[in-house]
């Protein structure tokens, strides 16, 4: 899938981010992301995976313009990211729809902010609600939807803005296995149809490998790039495919290695629990 003829749309260069950690009396600089560099091609579907709490979500927040960073560069289509606009839209794991609006009004929200006229707005909203197969629910209130439907509306709301890049921060993490499967298929279809550039963070190895053109594996905190895998396979992918399972297994090994390394690192302090997520 990755091909030289695609243009680079996003370049992350030597990105570094730290939090000031207030740990009782002593303040220390906690490095969350350290020297991360990678490129994303136009139309590419990149998944990012790493141990829990490694800083992958922080990375996405930074790219979305919601958090600051210490040093490095983030370049989108040749421009450094400035004040956020709807060029890069992020979709969260938590429920993020506005409960005071209907489904349609939620999808229209960003368009309204951009000052797009009402008729045009309605047309675009309808188009994306149809894309996520929720036309029957356009006038429903958010609380009447199931968890999976809410995430589909959030995806429609993001796509309606026609962003250059769609960031997804563990978007299906709070859903049950079956719904998650359905939405994974839907995201793949949407990617096929819209050719959007997608950067997708997950802690589910199987999800990362079955969705991504490329899987970036992060180390445990501070997040560094440990390994990248190119998954050059036709979609929809067969989860029983030996090549796919091969990649899944080797990523699982890498992450297990990270978590054990992490456990050894934090043994003396014993105050940071290590969760093994694979």
């Amino acid at each position, binding site marked *: 899938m990755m091909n030289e003829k695609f243009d680079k749309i996003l370049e992350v260069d030597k990105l570094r981010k730290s939090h000031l950690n207030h740990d009782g009396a002593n303040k220390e600089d906690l490095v969350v992301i350290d020297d991360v560099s990678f490129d994303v091609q136009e139309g590419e579907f990149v998944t990012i995976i790493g141990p829990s709490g490694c800083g992958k979500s922080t990375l996405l927040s930074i790219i979305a313009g919601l958090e600051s960073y210490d040093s490095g560069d983030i370049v989108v289509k040749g421009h450094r990211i400035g004040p956020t606009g709807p060029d*890069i839209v992020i979709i969260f794991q938590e429920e993020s729809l506005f409960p005071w609006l209907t489904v349609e009004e939620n999808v229209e929200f960003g368009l309204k902010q951009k000052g797009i006229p009402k008729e045009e707005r309605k047309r675009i909203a309808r188009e994306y609600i149809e894309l996520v197969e929720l036309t029957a629910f356009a006038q429903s209130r958010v609380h009447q939807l199931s968890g999976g439907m809410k995430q589909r509306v959030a995806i429609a709301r993001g796509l309606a803005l026609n962003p250059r890049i769609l960031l997804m921060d563990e978007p299906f993490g709070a859903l049950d296995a079956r719904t998650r499967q359905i939405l994974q298929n839907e995201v793949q279809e949407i990617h096929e149809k819209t050719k959007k550039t997608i950067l997708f963070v997950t802690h589910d190895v199987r999800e990362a490998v079955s969705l991504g053109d490329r899987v970036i594996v992060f180390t445990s905190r501070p997040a560094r790039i440990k390994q990248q895998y190119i998954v050059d396979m036709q979609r929809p992918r067969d989860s029983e495919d030996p090549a796919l399972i091969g990649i899944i297994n080797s990523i699982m090994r890498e992450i297990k290695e990270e978590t054990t390394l992490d456990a050894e690192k934090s043994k003396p302090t014993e105050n940071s629990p290590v969760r093994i997520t694979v």
Partner: protein
Amino acid sequence: MQRNQSQQKIVQSESQSSQKKQKGRGYTTYLDVAIAIGVFLGVWQLVFDLKVYPSFLLPSPAIAFSRLLTLAENGSLGLAVGATLGRLVAGFTISVISGTIVGLLMSNFRRFGKTMSSFCLGLQSFPSIAWVPFAILIIGLNNYGLLFVMVISSVFSMMISTYNSVRNIPPIYLKVAKNMGVRRVSLLRSVMLPASMPQMVTALRQTWSFSWHALIGAEMIFGISVGLGELLYYGSEFSEMNQVIATMIVIFVIGFVADRLVFQRLEDSVRSKRGLMSQFTN
């Protein structure tokens, strides 16, 4: 397709059943109120019939209501209700507008908010009647004095409610808005206000009730301007229990109508849109 249809059915049946429930709930509320009023009047009549108190001290419901009718006929009731409601609406409006503005400033400037919120909490529990001497001396025995007591007794509640409801907005809404490029003024109008609406409606109700309590108390002590408090005051001065009870009935009805029929309706409609339970009816 099939999935969609079955989901739609579920949603439809859910919304239908919730509508039914709401209708039923409203009906029983009115019935309950009617029963409660009936029981109250019955006990009142019984105490009257048993002659626990002499009839000039405790009139029967019929006598009290006939006094109410006389007051209404000679126009003094209409005048009093008009004056009191006029002050109430004015004071309430001032409290809501200024309280909301200061509350928003408090949530915007953290240090100001922290200082003001403890200050507000102290002033909020300060008895409204205790402001009356201060108001009389500094402003005078007039409508402005009354307005001052009303506003000072209710504005802090509005401030602190606004401050808290803005602070309680789930951060995810603000993140989404920021990511979509929503800027300050627009953020306030299209995200922060609607997001805090359920709590703000409760705040309105509370501010109304604080203003109402303060006003009647202040009117009674002022005793010179036309109003329901004045009717009560003179009723008590001239041992006119009929007038006292008649006025109390009017005060009850106004409070009840405002709270149940205006504020609760508003609150229920805001909450049910978002699938939140009604706080008071169920």
